[in-house]
């Protein structure tokens, strides 16, 4: 099959802090020029790309994508995924190298780009559609289909500022889903919207892929990468680490993440999340994995232990440590302490100690979570409380051993089914 995207030795150099630098002003430039007329000159001539102020967001990236292929691009934050997509979609220019493309490209780095709150849903379909590169005639032809896909019915004549966020996203995605480019570039856009609609979109994108359209797909959501792609590219620090089958690349990525993020221990003595008026009694929190090694990434259903150290003036009497688990969106999922749960019911504890909470099988689905930690000397009153003291990541895993990874919920319910007739 023909190669439709050919990237050779691509590099993009960014200047750190340039946004701030540019935001200051013409005045500064004039003052600078008056103060030191030669500095600007030397800077222009000099080998200014060697300085600390510059960094390569991408360096020496080469790749080929064949017609009809769905290529996943994965990597940690700052690995250069978005930069790569921005270069291929021509939003910004490369510093080095070249990209050759055959066919009409549509890029979807965001849903609802250009939506105007004052305009109605219908008007925004036209606006967003033509921003995404559809012709007016094309939009008119697909209009009814888009409205139906978005499931917003009679709200089509309402300004989108009155839409719920769900409706807004559905409309935005409906427009995007009806693009018919030869090459589709999709950034993490599915992170928004409710679960059932996400599924519908994934399905629609799957159809797109089966129609022989070429898709570049960036996501942090490994199950959807697994679902949609056959081949993946792993980026790290702006360079291609690996290009291979999806399974293999995801495995390597997970491994890398688990290792790199094994940040030892969270110090709590001066944690900014401490509520006002609290006594700083909590000292440190960390998590260990099944083998007792310190981690802050765990697989779904994995064995972990949370350790909390405290130190206080005088006796701790009956120390009670509470752990409150929250999603990054702030929904509380679990709360546990050593009074409600069995184990360490201590009396007359010394002024320093550690309480550990062993979780044999972590009942959380993939994602990032925060733990809010509390401390009390007795059952009466919390004397220390740190909001979002610790953050950890849960990686997808085949917890049921069926090959299906549960998603779209918060917890994992360990159940087995039987059938009777």
């Amino acid at each position, binding site marked *: 099959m023909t190669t439709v995207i050919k990237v050779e030795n691509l590099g993009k150099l960014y200047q750190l802090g340039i946004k701030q630098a540019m935001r200051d002003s013409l005045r500064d430039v004039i003052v600078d020029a008056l103060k030191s007329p030669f500095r600007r000159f030397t800077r222009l001539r000099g080998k200014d790309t060697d300085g600390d102020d510059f960094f390569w967001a991408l360096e020496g990236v080469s790749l080929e994508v064949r017609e009809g292929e769905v290529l996943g691009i994965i990597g940690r934050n700052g690995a250069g995924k978005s930069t790569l997509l921005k270069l291929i979609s021509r939003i910004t220019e490369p510093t080095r190298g070249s990209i050759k493309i055959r066919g009409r490209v549509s890029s979807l780095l965001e849903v609802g780009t250009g939506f105007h709150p004052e305009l109605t849903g219908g008007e925004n379909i036209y*606006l967003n559609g033509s921003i995404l590169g559809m012709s007016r005639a094309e939009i008119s032809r697909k209009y009814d289909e888009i409205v139906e896909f978005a499931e917003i019915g009679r709200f089509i004549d309402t300004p989108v500022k009155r839409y719920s966020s769900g409706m807004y996203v559905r409309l935005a995605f409906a427009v995007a889903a009806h693009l018919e480019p030869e090459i589709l570039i999709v950034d993490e856009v599915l992170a928004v919207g409710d679960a059932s609609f996400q599924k519908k979109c994934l399905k629609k994108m799957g159809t797109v892929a089966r129609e022989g359209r070429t898709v570049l797909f960036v996501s942090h959501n490994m199950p959807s990468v697994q679902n949609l792609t056959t081949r993946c590219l792993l980026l790290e620090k702006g360079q291609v680490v690996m290009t291979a089958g999806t399974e293999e690349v995801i495995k390597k990525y997970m491994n890398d993440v688990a290792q790199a993020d094994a940040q030892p221990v969270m110090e709590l003595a001066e944690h900014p999340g401490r509520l006002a008026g609290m006594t700083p009694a909590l000292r440190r929190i960390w998590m260990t994995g099944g083998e007792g090694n310190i981690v802050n990434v765990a697989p779904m259903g994995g064995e972990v232990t949370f350790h909390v150290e405290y130190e206080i003036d005088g006796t701790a009497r009956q120390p009670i440590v509470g752990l409150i688990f929250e999603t990054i969106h702030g929904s509380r999922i679990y709360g546990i302490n050593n009074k409600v749960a069995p184990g360490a019911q201590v009396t007359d504890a010394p002024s320093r100690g550690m309480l550990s909470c062993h979780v044999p099988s972590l009942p959380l689905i993939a994602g990032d979570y925060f733990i809010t930690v509390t401390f009390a000397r007795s059952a009466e009153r919390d004397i220390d409380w740190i909001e979002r003291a610790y953050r950890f990541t849960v990686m997808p895993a085949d917890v049921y051993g069926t090959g299906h990874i549960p998603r779209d919920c918060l917890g994992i319910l360990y159940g087995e089914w039987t059938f009777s007739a």
Partner: protein
Amino acid sequence: MEDSHFDTVIESKQGWSPVDWRELWRFRELMFTLAWRDIKVRYKQTVLGAAWAIFQPFAGMVIFSVFLGSFVKVPSDNLPYPVFVYAGLLPWTFFANCVGGASNSILSEAHLISKIYFPRLVIPIASFGSKLFDFIISFFIMFLIMAYYRIFPGASALMTPLLVLFTLLTAFGIGTFFSALCVTYRDVRYIIPVIIQLWMYATPVVYPLSIVPARYRWIISLNPVAGLIDAYRSALFGKPFDWRSIGTSLAISLVFIVIGLAYFRKAEKRFADII
């Protein structure tokens, strides 16, 4: 080479690059859609709607007629001062709004620039749409005012569409230059209204060119808007066109366009990185 089947090649381009007019033409629908959005939004947000477009030159006319027309008694080429001044304020407001709007346009579409590709020139050009719309509305008031003073336009009024095009071209050069400059230096945005304000007084809008001493007129003729405003009055009131000054204005406008486009093309490469 086997690479010949690719139709887009993206590479770093050094130095000056010419405008890809064919690509710009391909994006004409986006231009219209953005202009249509501006008009639509403006008329949805303001209760006054169309009245707002008229208000600006009309209020100017009333104030200048009272102070300059009646009190100071500024000459007005043998026309009633309100007619004279409205005929100046009308194209001036159009020009000033075009330049002001275009200057801010790139910054105000930052979210588009950082998320999607299209020729960036689409944005300043599209910003002219709503200004043109306002101009057309306030142009009808011109005829009402003229009718009130029993002045009737002759055949020369048919020149007006050409002058509108000319105004747009002048605003295009200056507007694209400022729009790019505003992205690079954020404080320029605050200077532009001041420049436009001062520019108005340096242009024979509220006074006739005839009160400028003859030996200084060449300075005025360097201002492309001066010849333009004069030409609007010629078209409306059937006074002979000053072809020399129109020619000079046009030539200077073209120079501005070349400078504006060259700077814009150079600066636009960095828009997405610094916006």
